[in-house]
């Protein structure tokens, strides 16, 4: 089942912060975050595994609340290069390794 992302779109000025949320109705084993520029393939940002961890990646970090089946991606002091569509992908565990993505969040960073 497809995870639900919010918001669908967000517009920022350079230097502002943003939060993108991802939630699932099923128990999650892992959450993946990817960013896609228009016309290109998605690029991996990070993976969070069951255990309620938080990860950081320069000024982009994420949290994973296993009990609530939710993850959030935090972008701080946004840069123009952060523009793109952000996807969360979820995996429910087991041995099938099926990774299902949400509809994406379009982030636009303006000067």
């Amino acid at each position: 089942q497809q995870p639900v992302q919010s918001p669908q779109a967000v517009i920022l000025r350079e230097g502002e912060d943003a939060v993108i949320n991802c939630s699932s109705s099923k128990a999650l084993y892992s959450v993946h975050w990817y960013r896609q520029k228009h016309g290109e393939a998605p690029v991996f940002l990070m993976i969070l595994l069951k255990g309620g961890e938080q990860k950081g990646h320069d000024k982009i970090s994420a949290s994973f609340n296993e009990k609530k089946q939710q993850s959030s991606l935090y972008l701080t002091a946004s840069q123009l290069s952060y523009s793109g569509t952000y996807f969360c992908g979820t995996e429910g565990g087991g041995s099938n390794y099926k990774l299902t993505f949400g509809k994406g969040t379009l982030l636009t960073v303006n000067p």
Partner: protein
Amino acid sequence: SQTIHQWPATLVQPVGSPLSLECTVEGTSNPNLYWYRQAAGRGLQLLFYSVGIGQISSEVPQNLSASRPQDRQFILSSKKLLLSDSGFYLCAWRRRGQTGELFFGEGSRLTVL
């Protein structure tokens, strides 16, 4: 190092014509393979995934099919294309038995007229 090749990059096909998109992975063995489609407003839709030769799991019942004739080859096919098959098709792989990063191909943009 591992690489993934996907072709053709772009194609325009008439309704009712057949389709074949091919994806190969180099530099690794026994990968998990995936086909996703990206159409407007639907994000990355998982179409098929495979954990081994001849093992295909279908996520969306439609007129598409997938095959994995060799360990590192994944093919997406259709006998008769529909207008709704238009979109950006992405092949991806990741290491067998691991919850790790998905590596995507460059994508194939299909327009059905």
